[in-house]
């Protein structure tokens, strides 16, 4: 299994990683080895095996709809690189927000 440089560049872009050309070369080689190792699994005949949705043999873990204590705003913001005491601050972003 060999990955192309453009595959690695795309994955890096999606992961917001700024890789230099040299790093893309290195990653292309290393990622190809990892993907190649995992692709060994393709040699197994899984036609009769149901897809696994979760490794644990547990289902239906729920909690009741009962409010619990939240953090204080100060606690919530304490590890943020930048905040104004109320909100997290990030460089200006424009465009839509909310769930896609």
């Amino acid at each position, binding site marked *: 299994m060999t990955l192309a440089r453009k595959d690695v560049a795309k994955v890096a872009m999606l992961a917001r990683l700024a890789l230099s050309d040299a790093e893309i070369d290195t990653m292309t080689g290393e990622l190809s080895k990892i993907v190649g190792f995992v692709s060994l699994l393709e040699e197994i005949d899984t036609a009769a095996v149901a897809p696994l*949705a979760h490794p644990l043999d547990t289902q239906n873990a729920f909690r009741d*709809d009962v*409010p619990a204590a939240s953090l204080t*705003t100060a606690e919530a913001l304490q590890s943020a690189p930048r905040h104004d005491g109320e*909100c997290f601050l990030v460089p*200006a972003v424009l465009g839509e927000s*909310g*769930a896609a």
Partner: protein
Amino acid sequence: MTKPAAPTAEPFTTVIGLEVHVQLQTKTKLFCGCSTTFGAPPNTQVCPVCLGLPGSLPVMNREAFSLAIKAALALECRIAPFTKWDRKNYFYPDLPKGYQISQFDLPFSSDGWLEVVDPKGAFSRKVGVIRVHLEEDAGKSMHDEAAGTADTRIDLNRAGTPLCEIVSQPDLRSPQEARAWLNELKLLLVYLGVSDCNMQEGSLRVDANVNLHIPRPDGSLAKTPIVEIKNMNSFRSVERALAYETARQYDEWQATGAELGTTPKQTRGWDDPAGVTRAQRHKEESSDYRYFPDPDLVPVTVSEEQIAAAKALMGTPPTVLRTTLAEKWKISAYDADVLVNQGRELVGYFEDVATRVGEGKVASNWLQQDVLRTLNERGETIDEFPIRPDALADLIRRVQNGDFDTSRGREIFAEVLTSGRSVADVVASLGIAAVGQDELIALCKELIAANPKIVADVQGGKEQAAAGLIGQAKKKNPNVNPAKVRQMCVDLIKALELPTRTPEA
């Protein structure tokens, strides 16, 4: 305003599909115990789970899941016996984990429909629902437009709020249909207590996909590129944006001939004040979200018994209620539609009044003509309305008894509303004591004696001449019921012709 004028007889078919997100009416978030109350100060309803802090683990909210099932059942969806959660990966500052917990290949429900029928008969459309799935909301980004390049502020109170995503088939054929369908969907979800669907507070959000199918002279079909419209803040905006976009696509197709598949899917934002859609960034392909099963959440199974139990608890949806209300109370389909569209509370009020007066039609008339108008004027909901069903029923019964006529009844209605006093109190204080039968007979005899001309006319067969006595009767006693005076006078005059008969009481 650069809104292109839509052609009057459209030489194309408009194809619209909607994607609706509704916030579920739970007390807490989807995966943690933080409150979902709207309007709290920023970042006061957050915890390690919804902030996406390392080491935290999400646990599914049972109520959110059962509300979602309710929504799916109401939309006639098939409930999957096995469902799981997936991570949808993308970067945005209001998405703290770098992924949204959503459902990809195994949503908990699919293949449903919701029909919308225009009460005026302009259209009737059964719209397929591709899927309903459960996911978490993102936080809120606040940009200070005036400050230009200033920081964006992030409030994560909303992050992790449970959302139902409802995706329709592209079955809608006009902007009007789209708006009507959304109204019906909202009514349904509010009736079932699934969501409050408050668009101002963002508990209901709509994106629309639209393109045109244009017949060519050779009989083949040209399909314009699909555009996704975002940023519509009301159902009216949805209708306007779709009307604008339809006309824009037709113009563009005539100018460029661009067709589906030749350009990437475009996202356009609706600019409401300007009344136009504007191009936004190109949507990433679905595979770019790199969905994979969330290892932090175990799958959920739903049995047939659970589905049956959920159905039993579901309550009556508006479509069914319209029919049963019309049949039970013998009111028209149109009247039932008006009442049902006002919401469950108003229907409850109506049924209470109708039960007390023993008649649906008169209760429906009072609600539509007097109560609804007053609610609009006062900006109140039916629950806040000061005249409760027992009081309105009391008033209606007095009109039915003939104590006074409807227009006098309206005056009493207004007085009860402003004074806050009981109907009986107001009736007494306005001197509207019911006129007794003996009093009425005496009054009518007096009038007959004083008006030989009218008596002669009535005896000559012109019964309507008795109407001339009503004004005089009102002068003598303002509380008399005009219809009763008229009838009594006619009866008395007829009795004069047959002296052996006494007037009937």
